[in-house]
C-alpha cells in the first residue's frame, strides 16, 4: 500500500491554488545499484489526474524524469471555498493512490 499523499488547496479570488506531494521512488530504469551494479527496474508514476467537484481539470502523463516523491502544483479558476479536489496517480507497475481535500 502506497504511503498517503499530502494536499493543500486554498483559494484567492476565484482561483484555487492546489499543491500535492506524492510518495514514490520514481526510478527511471536507467540507474544502477551502487552495490550490485545491476540496473534498478523502472518504477515511476506515469499518469496523474485531478478533478474539482468531480470535473476533470488536469490529466498528465509523466516519465521517470520527475523527481522522487513528486510535487505537483496547479491552479483552477472558477473555484470557491468548499470545492472538493481529488488527485490520483497510477504507476508503470499498475499501483495507484489518491488524495482528496477541500478548498479552504
Amino acid at each position: 500500500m502506497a504511503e498517503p499523499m499530502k494536499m493543500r488547496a486554498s483559494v484567492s479570488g476565484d482561483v484555487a491554488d492546489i499543491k500535492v506531494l506524492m510518495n514514490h521512488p520514481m526510478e527511471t530504469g536507467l540507474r544502477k545499484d551502487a552495490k550490485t551494479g545491476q540496473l534498478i527496474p523502472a518504477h515511476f508514476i506515469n499518469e496523474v489526474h485531478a478533478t474539482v467537484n468531480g470535473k476533470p481539470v488536469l490529466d498528465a502523463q509523466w516519465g521517470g524524469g520527475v523527481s522522487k516523491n513528486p510535487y505537483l502544483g496547479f491552479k483552477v479558476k472558477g473555484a470557491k471555498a468548499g470545492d472538493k479536489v481529488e488527485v490520483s496517480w497510477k504507476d508503470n507497475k499498475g499501483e495507484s493512490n489518491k488524495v482528496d481535500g477541500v478548498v479552504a
Partner: protein
Amino acid sequence: AAAAGLLKSGNVLAAWNSSAFAAKTVPEAIKDLGLSTPADSKAISIKAPDIAENGAVVPVEVTSSIAGTTGIAIFAEKNATPLITDFKLSNGAEGFISTRIKMGQTAMVRAVVTAGGKTYTAAKEVKVTIGGCGG
C-alpha cells in the same frame, strides 16, 4: 447514467506515450506527442533556479498567459530522454504547472504550450554544478 459516467471518467485518455518518453531529443519528443513545431513565445514564463541546489530535485514552474492554454509539456534538453511531463488542462485549470524534475547536467528547461491548436515554447537555463566553495 451513461452520461454521468462519461463525465466522471473525464477526457478521453490516450495510452501512455511510450515513444515520446523514450525519444532522445526534444524535436523527436514533440513530434511523438503529435504536436507541431512550436513558436517562441514571451507569454510563457519558466521559473527555475539559476543554479540547481540538487540536480535530482529541480523545481520548475511554468506559467502560460496565452489564452486558451490546454497543454503544457516540460523537457530537460540534455537528459537522456528529455520529455519529463505532458499535462492536459481543462475546465478552468489555468496555464500553470509547478513540479520538480531531475537534471543530469546543465541544460535548458523547455516548456511547450498548446493553445487553440497551436504550439508555443520558451526555455530557461539551469546550471547543475558539483559545488563546494565558500566566501
